[in-house]
């Protein structure tokens, strides 16, 4: 099934087309499963972007960074500072977020990539926890005497911030409202058309995701991407093939850091508050799970993984006993109460238990991820699996 492992450009463009259509029509096909409200859709798209970026490093080069949530946080703080200084326009916020997180990724990457394997993971984990501690108690802010991250409350845009460009670009539009607007188009605005909520903020993020996914696709299919895959399989041979692996891994680290920064910026564009908790190491663990759940090294896998994790997170945490009684109505009353009381351990205040179990089950039973699982099912269905095995058997016999 060469088509699945090495799609031609025409296959890629059709896949890209399907992906764009799916993202843009999310408010419609998500309604049946009750996930079509702006906040959740924005999270699907933003964490899809974060996972796609992380996949470029982890999926292609195999380097497991356990601190990428730090760049998400750095992107968020930069975006809010761009709002405070330049005004509530998302474009400069995104651009600054990407550059600043890129610089941080360059520094942290350059230092961390001097090691590999578990040492590299622990180094990035240590860097991220340091960034988290600095942001959480605003250590640098205290050192410089300014309110850099506003500590645990989170950095917000205040009425008395300079916002220099606000008056200039959006002349005539009341800029007192502290909502993010794209040259006047208020991103919190939602058009409702027979029951479907089309949110401007969501479509801004969707547009950014589509561009970023296209860039990721080009990277995957390019010689640069091929070199990254080679780094994963055999770095020693690659060195002796005349390729300096250090800059390649650093480039992949910086690119994935910039994706994370962009995702952090989008988090603030849809909700202008930069909290320190998004930099916690548990968030770094979650993005690794998204990539593994979706399918490491595949293009669409991380997006899928992000969607599933964020959906289950939102659903499980809000279900309580009433919802469980509804779902389990088919069980006869006698035993339903016991079933519900057991089930309620897994939802509502116990949703972390489900998250932990999901972590374990995915890694145990589906290490290749959903896309890999789908590919294997497709192979079995189309019987091409047998043909492939014959070719390999023939090669073996020739020995």
């Amino acid at each position, binding site marked *: 099934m060469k088509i699945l492992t090495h799609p031609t450009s025409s296959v890629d463009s059709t896949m890209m087309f399907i992906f764009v259509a799916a993202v843009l029509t999310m408010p419609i096909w998500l309604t049946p499963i009750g996930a079509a409200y702006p906040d959740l859709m924005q999270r699907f798209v933003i964490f899809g972007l974060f996972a796609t970026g992380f996949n470029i490093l*982890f999926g292609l080069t*195999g380097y*497991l960074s*356990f601190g990428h949530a730090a760049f998400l946080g750095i992107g968020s703080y930069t975006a809010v500072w761009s709002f405070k200084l330049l005004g509530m326009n998302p474009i400069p916020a995104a651009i600054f977020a990407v550059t600043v997180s890129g610089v941080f990724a360059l520094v942290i990457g350059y*230092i961390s990539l*001097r*090691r*590999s*394997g*578990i*040492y590299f*993971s*622990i*180094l990035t*984990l*240590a*860097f991220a*926890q*340091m960034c988290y*501690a*600095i942001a959480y*108690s605003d*250590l640098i802010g*205290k*050192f410089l005497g300014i309110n850099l991250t506003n500590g645990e409350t989170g950095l917000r845009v205040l009425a008395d911030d300079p916002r220099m460009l606000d008056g200039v670009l959006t002349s005539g539009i009341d800029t007192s409202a502290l909502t993010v607007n794209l040259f006047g188009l208020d991103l919190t605005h939602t058009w409702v058309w027979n029951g479907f909520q089309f949110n401007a903020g969501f479509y801004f993020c969707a547009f950014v995701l589509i561009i970023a996914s296209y860039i990721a696709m080009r990277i995957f299919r390019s010689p640069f991407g091929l070199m990254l895959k080679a780094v994963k399989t055999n770095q020693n041979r690659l060195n002796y093939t005349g390729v300096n692996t250090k800059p390649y891994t650093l480039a992949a680290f910086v690119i994935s850091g910039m994706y994370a920064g962009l995702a952090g910026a989008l988090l603030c564009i849809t909700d202008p508050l930069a909290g320190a908790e998004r930099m916690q*190491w548990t968030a770094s*663990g979650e993005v*690794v*799970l998204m990539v*593994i759940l979706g399918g490491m090294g595949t293009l669409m896998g991380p997006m899928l993984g992000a969607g599933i994790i964020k959906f289950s997170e939102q659903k499980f945490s809000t279900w309580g006993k009433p919802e469980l009684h509804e779902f389990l109505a088919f069980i006869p009353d006698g035993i339903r109460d016991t079933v519900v009381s057991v089930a309620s*351990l897994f939802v509502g205040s*116990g949703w*972390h*238990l489900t*998250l*932990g*179990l*999901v*972590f*374990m089950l*995915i*890694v*145990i039973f589906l*290490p290749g991820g959903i896309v890999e699982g789908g590919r294997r099912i497709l192979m079995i269905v189309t019987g091409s699996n047998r043909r492939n095995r014959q070719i390999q058997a023939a090669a073996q016999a020739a020995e």
Partner: protein
Amino acid sequence: MDAIILQVLNGLEKGGAYALIALGLTLIFGTLGVVNFAHGALFMLGAFCAVIMRSLLTYEVATGEVEATAWGTEVAVTTPYVTQLFGEFGNTLIDWAVPVSILLTIPVMLIVGLVMERGLIRHFYKRPHAEQILVTFGLAIVLAELIKAQFGANPIPVPEPAALGGMADFSGIFGSEPGTITYPMWRFVYFLFSAFIILIVFCFLKFTTFGMVVRAGMEDRETVGLLGINIGKRFTFMFAISAMIAGLAGAMYTPIISPDYNIGMEFLVLSFVVVVVGGMGSLGGAVSAGFLLGLLQSFSAMNEVKAIIPGIDQIIIYLVAIIVLLVRPRGLMGRKGVMET
């Protein structure tokens, strides 16, 4: 001068906990090559063994009288069953609950270690580190949530024995007049306890044949396997031992920090930093790094130090890890070439 001595005592007590946890972690990583993010949860399970022992001992039995309460429901007046059973000895048993809980912690943690290794870890020896990290990270969350479902989210106080409680006066030893250097007795007892456990583990590994095989396993797993030694059984036993060490560290730490379901997570990142600073697979390294980081963490919290670099106490651990990993990747006492790529 007293302040420094007190911080040294703080550092030794903290270091004791970090060393015990890191010792267990290095044993697992050194011999099995498995990155176990659930090691912090073992520390928590040990702590809750102490909590369970205490609640077992203080199990209350109705004494027949009934007392009305302001909020309307009747509550029976109760006394601990143990005192009813053994009289005065029962009360001393309750008082000494934490040391007594060691008797419960050892078997429970050995079984937990056994089940965890046979049930889950065994399948992950050959799997990449990323998958090991995620599956054990998931296990840590599950264990924490189960404890939270059972014991609630609030910290549960577990008092230390009165005889070993209160303040110990160390002024005499350090030659300053009495009453200036006083330190909680139990924290010092904890340091002694951890030193004792470390000693036992080292003797066990140094002087027993089983220990020799384990140390050989840490050097080079394949060759030991090639020599026909059933390394699988050894690994299971090693995992159980390291679970027990972490559990004991947790059980005896309960009087210092009232345990709650999240205590395991707080020690998790720290335990990995200690292991890496000490040098992967080196027992001596893990212990010395544990005490080093304990001391650094205490000294960095002194007001004079914080005046120079505000907030240094919150990032000192990670700063040390980064510097050590860059300057001396194999850690303080790791062997050349071990994980040095």
